[in-house]
């Protein structure tokens, strides 16, 4: 395994993010840094990656673990290249979320929470993503796919079957360099 270290561009961004908080309050940068780490290190947070983030902020590893395990967007296990997050709460349920989940399960041959054998897709049902007026919906990386039909889901899966990169919530251009 290669050394765990952000690339230079990300490291510069990390320094810029830390400056957003008062002197001595650098721990505030933890959530954004974990997002950057997940995006750069294959879509999940391993213990060594979390230890690295702790070292960047000069905090104890346990302070990182307890945060990473609290928030649902941090993956503490490897996930497929494409993480399909399907909303299932009320408004999406009213407009067919269960059927979307069943369709994906049938198409990919996996259940909720599982990853396909080729490591391409992980299916995860999630709670309300604030897309109730355009339900049913699913999220891949930062992108919301709304007013879903089986055809739209099929097209997305087809599209992602051919991609090699990981789905990401953000990249180095998301946060402003202040």
């Amino acid at each position: 395994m290669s050394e765990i270290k952000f690339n230079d561009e990300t490291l510069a961004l990390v320094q810029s993010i830390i400056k957003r908080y008062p002197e001595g309050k650098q721990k505030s940068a933890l959530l954004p840094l974990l997002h950057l780490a997940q995006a750069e290190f294959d879509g999940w947070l391993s213990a060594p990656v979390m230890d690295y983030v702790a070292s960047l902020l000069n905090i104890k590893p346990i302070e990182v673990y307890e945060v990473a395990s609290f928030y649902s967007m941090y993956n503490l296990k490897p996930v497929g290249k494409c993480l399909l997050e399907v909303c299932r709460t009320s408004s999406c349920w009213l407009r067919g979320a269960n059927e979307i989940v069943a369709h994906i399960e049938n198409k990919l041959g996996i259940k909720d929470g599982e990853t396909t054998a080729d490591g391409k897709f992980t299916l995860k049902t999630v709670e309300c993503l604030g897309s109730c007026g355009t339900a049913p919906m699913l999220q891949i990386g930062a992108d919301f796919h709304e007013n879903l039909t089986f055809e739209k889901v099929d097209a997305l899966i087809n599209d992602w079957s051919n991609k090699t990169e990981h789905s990401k919530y953000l990249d180095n251009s998301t946060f402003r360099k202040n």
Partner: protein
Amino acid sequence: MSKKILLEHIDVPGIETLAVYREKGGYASVEKALKTMTPDAIVEEVKKSGLRGRGGAGFPTGMKWSFLAKPEGVARYLVCNADESEPGTFKDRYLMEKIPHALIEGMITSSFALGANTSYIYVRGEYFYIIKILEKAIADAYAAGWLGKNILGTGYDLDLYVQAGAGAYICGEETALLESLEGKRGNPRIKPPFPAIAGLYGCPTVVNNVETIAAVVPIVNNGGDWYAGIGIGKSTGTKLISASGHINKPGVYEIEMGITVEDFIYSDEYCGGIKNGKKLKAVVAGGSSVPILPAEMILTTANGEKRLMSYESLADGGFATGTMLGSGGFIVMDETTSIVQNLHTFARFYHHESCGQCSPCREGTGWMEKILHKILDGHGTLEDVDLLWEIQRKIEGNTICPLGDAAAWPVASAIRHFRHEFEEYVKNPAAIKDVKHYHNMHKLATA
């Protein structure tokens, strides 16, 4: 007639850019506030406006601002709550995506009023594409001199930053949000002290919702009295309503407070009636936390008057026959909807989102989900329905933060108004199969 204040220019091409936003009068409130008003005068206008917190609690904004402690030499913070996560609510996302500068302008004017020199917008992490939009808008505002040092040559300095959450409904609770902003788990704090005394980094802090902050702009521009003249009674101004579910036109609508619920559901200007010509069965009017009401109760108060879209009218009758305006997350259900199944999605949600600090909420939300699952699996008993009632009653009022109440109210109201549906599932499990069959077969076919 719809009354557009926040969304007046929503359809103007390019309104998301600083240039077009400026052409439409954007940032006038910053000029007016910084050059011609004292911070106290702005707080006074917001008090006069009658503006109430638009995140769900409805607490008077001017009063909240006036509680802010101002000890000498201690930083004060304004934090915008953009952790929009209440099921059924998507208005803040709409506002930030379409008119990001409306929020940034509101943050500058409000920060000046509160004496904050550093402010944060805490956005739920799932909205990363919105974060990108806000970061671009903030960069443009800095470049144009609306943010940074010595804004408009007045000597006022303000830095504005976006903070990303990472998936936790509880961070919409203001003290949990502050914990999260400090890089910790989102566990709500015990109050007092309130954030106005000891908030972010222990400093005096105001936390306001996106829509609340955006409403400060027209209030400063036109005066508190002008705003107070819009709406009805103590429900002044306009409200963004997120409409979803079985309606013809889901979406975000800006309404003047005081229109009838009936008009909102059936008028073509708003929801456009129930989808597929079905009948209305029930409505959750203010986001998942507020009591669900059957059609006749949401349309008409116990006194036989038409119910209005306002804080007071929606709450009329208390929880026996009323509900709450909440966040304005308006979820409409047609006659085919299983109230028990819908409740199960809510119970699962609150179980998932409980932070785990208080045992009544941590344990109770799990038990409520399990019992509903048991009933929907065809193994429920009449005692289970009573047990559900008992559990919700023991959560309500017994937790540090309002998530416990929010988890209890949907269960209580579903049993209060639809007990027959629970009992039918217990006595005749075949009825559940029919409902599930309906949902499986027909929901997407009619999409």
